[in-house]
């Protein structure tokens, strides 16, 4: 391919606006007459609302109106829903409690929205919000999932007895128990996957504008999937019918899952705009984001991994309790089930697997997908228990893994997934070589002389991206299909616009998608524009999450390009008086193969639109659309190795080396792929070392600012050594697997395996803060 086609490290087209301050995020939008909104939020984790008095607030300077939940309900605005149905093992459907966009009679977490204040300025709205008098009757709260399941725990929703949302299982319990009973060795662990806050740097925001003349709504919102937002707001929340609602997600400052969901605020801003007759803009504070963005992870698990006398894995038994917070967020139910338990086979042949998952309501912010979504939890669990088993069995961690790798494909796991391609040993070898694994013992000795404890740990992850065939996810309970759409418009002068249902919020689609088109037709990359993020421009799409934009979004573009190419060749053949089968596209021209006869791309395009000389019966124009529905998940996999030095006096962990060897299949732009891995690893290291979302027993969020929640900073991280191998994905036309989440999935267990190796104590939870590491070190000394 050429300099700008597939495989080239093309600098990003979108960068210029971002580095010059010309990016346009929701908070940058100004609409004439626009007013500013502030939400009144519950200061209590659990309380009855006795009375809301807005009189004083309404009389404050600049206040347009103060609106509450009762008004919203009487206008017919619907409750928020979870769009993925999970059935408990007894066959009963999940127990979804009502979630009103503005709480009416009860609040269930600190930050639950109670009222919206609209005023001329944000300052005035904030002042007035403080003057809204809400009388609460406080109720007992529960924040830990394990506690919420106990008898006598505070009850959150009448629909969910004992706070249990579902009790679900996958796999063969009998076979698993039988294999464990006759195992030569069983490794048992209690694993906690710490609760995280996604923390995209751009806080969530919404600008709702009701146009009375057109009886039409526009919503600018920080969304990863504006079409899904429009669909859900129309179909379930009764905001407006789809043809009367335009959703625009302009430049969006990071998502990591947290901007997939449709939150109360965008619904309320749209409704409030009609109610007040003015455009209403809301932008979250950072503390508001901590309180009300969907959080991630928060699992507690008991696991057993069984081996035969040859150290082959025979069974895995998992019992997980997952905290879903106070309400079921849009895809929350799928995360600890189909995005988690289906990956529990990891890279290994494990003949029997059984997982039981209970999800639970607590008085905390809703929990949903955060970068990796279920797969980091599965990987952490499995890679911690495999590493621990290696230590117990006295075998090298790499060799225990290698012995149990899946090596022939396709491989049907006992937990739904059918792995289509991979070479796990290749990634392991590449990572061990890059890390100079063989030289570790020497480095450990050298560190010891300096008074430092050096450790090494690995993690061999597999994940599922795409996400999947629509019919397959439909059969598993998904309320939506997971295809993607594309439209390719070749203009009369030959420039090309690609309309995609994928949404870029940092992933660089404007560049990679353009590379695909430029490479295909040999046109300059500048002549290709990518259009996304606006339901008025792009008809329909499913958006960006689950590392799906390459594997699914670009596959849809390929399908549309195939159609464009076919028609372009017909036109060229007609113009060149040649056979259509002899036309090839090279360097921006359509040529008759083996001759110098050609028609430049732009001339062919012009011919399509002048329509003076087209083949008989051909319609003018050159515009083609496609929908692509994947035929399988894709399965990125890889090996991560982390090397640490622990200061025994302070418990401080220094990551001295981090190696990633990933198999993402074919790659369009290696520079962008590496960037995705870097960012994912940083989030994974953040989870392992620094980040932990904490509520106190009364349900107050203790980590509600960057003063309290430790974000990874430049000084906390090393430079990373990343490399990729390539077994192309057989299920999509580009052979792409997806790279967006791997870093966050694969890295946490590698870090914890390294630290526990360094300190000689396996009993360590994330985040491994200096205090925890120091305490674990002292405990190890006593033994």
């Amino acid at each position, binding site marked *: 391919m050429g300099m700008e086609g597939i495989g080239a490290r093309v*600098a*990003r087209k*979108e*960068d*210029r*606006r*971002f*580095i*010059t*301050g*010309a*990016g*346009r*995020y929701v*908070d*940058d939008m*100004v609409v004439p007459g626009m007013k500013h909104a502030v939400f009144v939020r519950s200061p209590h984790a659990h309380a009855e609302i006795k009375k809301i008095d807005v009189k004083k607030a309404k009389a404050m300077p600049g206040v347009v109106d103060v609106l509450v939940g009762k008004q919203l309900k009487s206008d017919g605005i619907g409750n928020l829903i979870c769009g993925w149905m999970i059935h408990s093992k007894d066959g009963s459907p999940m127990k979804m409690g009502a979630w009103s966009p503005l709480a009416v009679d009860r609040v269930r977490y600190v930050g639950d929205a109670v009222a919206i204040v609209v005023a001329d*300025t944000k*300052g005035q709205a904030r002042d007035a919000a403080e003057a809204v008098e809400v009388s609460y009757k406080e109720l007992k709260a529960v924040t830990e999932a394990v506690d919420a399941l106990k008898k006598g725990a505070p009850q959150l929703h009448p629909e969910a007895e004992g706070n249990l949302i579902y009790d679900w299982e996958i796999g063969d319990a009998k076979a698993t128990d039988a294999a464990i009973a006759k195992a030569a060795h069983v490794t048992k662990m209690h694993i906690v996957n710490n609760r995280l806050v996604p*923390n*995209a*740097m*751009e*806080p969530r925001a919404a600008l709702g504008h009701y146009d009375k003349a057109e009886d039409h709504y526009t919503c600018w919102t920080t969304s990863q999937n504006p079409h899904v937002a429009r669909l859900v707001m129309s179909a379930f929340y009764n905001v407006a019918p789809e043809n009367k609602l335009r959703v625009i997600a302009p*430049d*969006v*400052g*990071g998502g*990591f899952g947290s901007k997939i969901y449709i939150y109360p605020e965008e619904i309320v801003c749209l409704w409030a705009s009609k109610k007040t007759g003015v455009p209403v803009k809301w*932008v979250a*504070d*950072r*503390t508001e984001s901590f309180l009300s963005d969907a959080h991630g992870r928060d699992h507690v698990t008991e696991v057993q991994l069984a081996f035969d006398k040859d150290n082959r894995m025979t069974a895995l038994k998992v019992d997980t309790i997952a905290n879903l917070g106070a309400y079921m967020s849009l895809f929350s139910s799928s995360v600890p089930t189909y995005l988690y338990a289906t990956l529990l086979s990891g890279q290994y042949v494990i003949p029997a697997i059984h997982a039981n998952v209970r999800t639970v309501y607590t008085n905390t912010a809703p929990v949903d997908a955060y970068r990796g979504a279920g797969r980091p939890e599965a990987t952490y669990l499995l890679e911690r228990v495999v590493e621990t088993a290696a230590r117990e069995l006295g075998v090298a961690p790499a060799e225990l893994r290698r012995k149990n790798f899946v090596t022939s494909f396709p491989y049907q796991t006992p937990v739904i997934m059918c792995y289509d391609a991979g070479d796990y040993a290749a990634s392991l070898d590449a990572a061990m070589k890059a890390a100079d694994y063989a030289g570790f013992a020497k480095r450990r000795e050298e560190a010891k002389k300096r008074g430092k404890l050096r450790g090494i740990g690995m993690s061999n992850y597999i994940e599922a991206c795409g996400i999947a065939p629509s019919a397959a996810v439909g059969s598993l309970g998904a309320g939506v299909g997971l295809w993607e759409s594309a439209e390719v418009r070749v203009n009369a002068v030959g420039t090309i616009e690609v309309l995609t249902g994928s949404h870029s*919020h*940092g*992933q*660089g689609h404007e560049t990679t998608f353009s590379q695909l088109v430029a490479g295909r037709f040999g046109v300059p990359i500048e002549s290709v524009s990518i259009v996304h993020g606006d339901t008025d421009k792009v008809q329909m799409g499913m958006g960006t999450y689950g590392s799906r934009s390459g594997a699914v979004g670009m596959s849809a573009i390929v399908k549309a390009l195939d159609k464009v190419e076919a028609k372009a060749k017909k036109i060229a053949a007609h113009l060149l008086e040649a056979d259509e089968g002899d036309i090839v596209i090279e360097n921006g021209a359509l040529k008759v193969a083996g001759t110098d006869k050609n028609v430049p791309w732009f001339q062919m395009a012009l011919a399509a639109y002048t329509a003076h000389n087209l083949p008989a019966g051909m319609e003018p124009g050159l515009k083609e659309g496609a929908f692509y529905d994947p035929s399988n998940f894709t399965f990125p996999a890889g090996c991560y190795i982390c090397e640490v030095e622990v200061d025994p006096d302070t418990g401080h962990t220094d990551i001295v080396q981090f190696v990633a060897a990933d198999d993402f299949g074919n790659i369009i732009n290696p*520079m*962008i792929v*590496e*960037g995705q891995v*870097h*960012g*994912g*690893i*940083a*989030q994974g290291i953040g989870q392992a070392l620094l980040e932990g979302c904490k509520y106190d027993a009364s349900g107050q969020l203790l980590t509600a*600012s*960057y*003063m309290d929640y430790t*974000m*990874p*900073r*430049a*000084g906390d*991280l090393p*430079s*990373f050594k990343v490399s990729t191998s390539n077994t192309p994905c057989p299920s999509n036309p580009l052979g792409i697997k997806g790279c967006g989440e791997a*870093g966050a999935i694969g890295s946490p267990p590698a870090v914890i395996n390294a630290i526990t190796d360094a300190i000689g104590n396996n009993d360590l939870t994330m985040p491994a803060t200096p205090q925890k590491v120091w305490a674990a070190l002292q405990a190890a000394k006593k033994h």
Partner: protein
Amino acid sequence: MSEVTINVNGRTVTKTVEDRTLLVHFLREELGLTGTHVGCDTSQCGSCVVHVDGKAVKSCTMLAAQASGSSVVTIEGLANGAELHPVQAAFKEHHGLQCGFCTPGMIMAAVDMINRHPEGLDEATVRAELEGNICRCTGYHNIVKAVLAASAAMGKASKGKAKAA
């Protein structure tokens, strides 16, 4: 209300604003310079860094009134017309940005850092000095690369090279 006169990107502007108006809100809302971002409420994230009289300042920690009489440069004023500042160019070349939200603050902080280190920069120094700027996308890997490259491009020998020589 306060009358505030600030030279912003070479142009002197006078506005009457609420006393509590922060410099960042003055720039964004009064002047429409939306390249300077607000990413937190506690002066931790650095998305709002601008230069006030040549020094990097978090514009969320300063009242507009405090900046009255000063010269402010924002991300919009950094390039020389169509010609990017070397730090901007390095961020693009080395893929030092993804979603772009922290980027203006990162670039303004990096320019200041390079100016304060005429002896040149090494990786450890860059990482330490980026303490006041949070990025959630890049893992800092390429930001560090970009700052080092820009420092070199701006005519400062890297420490490593200086030592070798």
